[in-house]
Structures are given as C-alpha cells and as structure tokens.
C-alpha cells in the first residue's frame, strides 16, 4: 500500500469526490423519491437518465447550453410522468416482483432505444463550466467540480423547499407516509405518484448531464453510476432523501480517496468498493445512516 499525500492533493481529491458524489446523490435522490412513495426500486433510473442526456446532446446542436439543459429537464419530467401512468400504474399496488421485472424490462428497452437512436459510439458532451482551474487558498480546484457541486446542491435545495413549503409537496410527503389516509383528505394519490416519477426523471437527467462531460456519452454510461447511486441510497437509508444526498457525497469522497490512496483499489475496483458499501450497510445497519430502524413486520 502506497500512502503519501500532500494537503493540496487531499483537498483536490475531496472536492472532486464531492463532485462525483453530487452526481451519485442526485440519482440516489431520484431512486429514493420513487421508493418512498411506491416501495419500488426503479432499476431503469440510470438508463432513463442516459436517454435524456442524449436528448440534451441533440438539443445542444440547435441551441445553447442552458436553454437545452432546462428543456431537457422538462422533457425528462414529462417522460417520467408518462411512464408512471402507462407502465407502472397498473401494477403499482400489487406485489413487488412484477414491478421490479418491469423496471428491468424498461432498463433493457431504454438502453436499446438509446443505442438505436444515437448509436453506440462515444460522443463528447459539453460541460456547463470551464475546465480551467481556480485557486482557492493556494490550492487549484477545477471549476467544473465546483460547478457540479453547486448545481447538485442547488437542485436538492429547490426540492427541499418544494417539499417543505408547498401544498403539493406536503401532499407528496403524505402519500409517502400513508396513501390510504391521504385519499381520505382528498389527495389524488395517482397524480402524486406520477409527479414523483417526473421529479425523479428530471433529477436523473441532471445527474446524466453533469457526469457526461467527464465519462463521455454512450448508451452504457450510467450503469456504474446506477450502482453507486444504489450504494448511496442504501447508505443513507432508502427512505431518506437527505440520506441519499449525504450518502452520495460521502460515497463520492470515499471512492475517490480509496482510488487515489489505496494502491490495489486503483481505478478498476471502484465498483467493487461500491458493492462492498452496499453489502456492508445492508448487513450491519439496513436502515442506513438516516433511516428508521424498522422491526420486521409480521
């Protein structure tokens, strides 16, 4: 094990770890949003994100970055809502396995669709931020990393405000807690679930557009990000939105530091570290950092 560092290198690694963590956390948040209200883990979340990132790529040939970015978020939102209404609604209320299979089917379908429409060759995706470094306290950080952290945290902040202070956000929280009870006060549960899927899809698009500049855009781009997002969601507690974000940030930093400072991990075993996190959390404390430890329901 080779272990040698300078403070500035450590700071850089932490910041870039936070940036990756913001990406994982956004996708993890999407997964948690859907899981909270429907008990479904959407295995297709990553592929949906890739698809919408491809859409952004196409849009960016016709308009500048931020308008394309915004339009993509809207399109992603719409497609999430549509998916919930058409494909998930019929099986939402029943046993969990058929829904898992459907999301897996969607994973394969959307992955194939991305391949079919845009081809499997690797494309470059523009970054919102320049790749120039910026010096803070004498250490050089990448503007892109800082930008990604900013965008991710900004999205999370917006969502937090939405859930805490709007009527619809309150209704969605109620549905996540108790759908039957929510109906009795007049909440249209189906609409809230569709809304959840829409928001999740938008978050996925955000995550995809943030990661694409560094890993390059191709149909399988998000498969490993999905694994990290699962690890982050599990680490934070599958029902906790804050947990997903914090879990993502922590995971990003841990992966980066492990990859840099622990010799045999290198770059190839990052996935294995992600897996190890999932297994460790599930075996030691399944509720994660922020989840409530629930006694086994009899």
């Amino acid at each position, binding site marked *: 094990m080779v272990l040698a560092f300078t403070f500035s290198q450590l700071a850089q690694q932490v910041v870039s770890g936070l940036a990756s963590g913001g990406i994982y956390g956004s996708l993890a948040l999407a997964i948690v949003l859907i899981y909270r209200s429907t008990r479904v883990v959407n295995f297709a979340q990553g592929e949906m994100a890739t698809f919408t990132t491809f859409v952004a790529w196409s849009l960016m040939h016709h308009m500048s970055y931020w308008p394309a970015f915004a339009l993509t978020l809207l399109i992603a939102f719409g497609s999430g809502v549509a998916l919930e209404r058409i494909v998930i609604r019929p099986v939402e209320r029943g046993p969990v396995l058929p829904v898992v299979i459907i999301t897996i089917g969607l994973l394969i379908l959307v992955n194939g669709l991305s391949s079919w429409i845009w081809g499997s060759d690797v494309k470059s995706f523009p970054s919102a931020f320049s790749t120039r470094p910026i010096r803070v306290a004498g250490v050089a950080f990448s503007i892109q990393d800082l930008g990604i952290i900013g965008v991710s945290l900004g999205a999370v902040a917006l969502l937090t405000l939405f859930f805490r202070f709007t*009527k619809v956000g*309150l*209704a969605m*929280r*109620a549905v996540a*807690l*108790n759908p*039957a*009870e*929510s*109906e*009795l*006060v*007049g*909440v*249209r*549960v189906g609409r809230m679930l569709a809304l959840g899927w829409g928001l999740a899809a938008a978050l996925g698009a955000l995550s995809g557009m943030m990661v694409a500049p560094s890993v390059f855009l191709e149909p399988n781009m998000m498969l490993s990000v999905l694994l990290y997002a699962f690890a982050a969601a599990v680490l934070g507690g599958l029902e906790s939105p804050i947990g997903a974000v914090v879990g993502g940030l922590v995971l990003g930093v841990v992966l980066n530091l492990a990859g840099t400072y622990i010799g045999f991990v290198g770059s190839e075993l990052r996935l294995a570290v992600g897996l190890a996190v999932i297994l460790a959390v599930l075996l030691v404390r399944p509720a994660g950092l922020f989840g409530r430890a629930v006694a086994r329901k009899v």
Partner: protein
Amino acid sequence: MSLTVDEGDFAAVLGANGAGKTTMLRAVSGTVRRSGSIVFDGRSIGGKGPDAVARLGIAHVPEGRGTFGGLSVWENLRLGAYPRRDRAGVRADFDRVERHFPWLTTRRDQPAGTLSGGEQQMLALARALMARPRLLMLDEPSLGLGPIVVRSLFEILERLNREEGLTILVVEQNANVALRASKRAYVLEVGRVALAGDSAKLREDESVRHSYLGY
C-alpha cells in the same frame, strides 16, 4: 341495508363487533368496493373513489385516527384543507379549529406521532373540520381512549352539531356516550338495520338497552 342521514342530523350507528358498522362507513367514503345506491346530496357517489368522495364534502375520520405521524400538527391540519382553494376560508377555519382545540396552537410543530391517543383523536377531528365538510363521519372515535377524553370529544361533537349545524354520522361501540350526544340512532346486527329511532327514546328504553346494546 338502508340508512338515511338528513342535513343537520347527528346520527349514531351502534352494534356489536362484526356487525358491519365500519364497513358501512368505508362503503360511503369509497374505501371499499360496494354495490347498491349511495346518494349524497342528491348525487350518486357509489362509483367514486375516496379522494373524489372527500372532495364532495364528506370527511371520514377512520378507525385508529389516521393522523400522519411523521408530519407536524400544523401540517396535518393543512392537509385537511387540501382540496380547498379559498385561502381566506381556510385561514378562518384554522382560527375556528384553534378555538375548539386551544392546545393545538402550542403544539403546532410537534410531530403528530408524539401526541397521546386522545390528542391524536382530537387532531384527526380538527383535520376533518379543516375541510369544512358537509358530512362528518367518525369511526369508533372512543377506541382506546379514557372516559374523560371520550366525554369531552362527544361534547365537542354535540356542540358542533348544535351551534354550527354540522351533519355528523358516528359509528360507535360505546353506545351510552353515543346515545347521549346524538339525535338519532341505528343499531346494526350482522349487516342489517335491526333498530332505528330517536336516541333519547332508545336510551330510556331498558329492554332495548339490554338486548341490543348490552347494558
């Protein structure tokens, strides 16, 4: 089975466990599938789901309170007014509810799950009132509560009916307290209406009390 509640009524539905009281309430609110005709205010609601029924002005306080434990007291109340668009009316109802339940003001931000059973029942009632319902239905409100709390709960119900003309339908196992507060009563037996009449008369009739109500 056939049952009618007029505007301004305070009706109690009594009967032993398994007589079908809760199911009847759920049939009205749309929580269970039902057949037959259910007419509210001249409109048939037999095919509507619970959220549609709630939007028509029927507030159903289910068995076990049904408060959102993870949300604060204030948020529970806010949810009660969910379908309403008249902001001024909602604010007025907040004040009205706080007058009926003054202790709620001090507990605004407390998670509803940390309230006692009696307080949660009051909160559930308060939440239902926030909808400014045309019909208020309560399912076994006295369940798991001490006698003092139960008495004050029914006093509030009786006051709401008398002062504000709120139409109330209560399903209760505690026949005594329900008969005191209500105006009319129905006794169910195995899904049928076995007895119907004026609450005061039923309460005074010893033979009825012995054979149907067990006291």
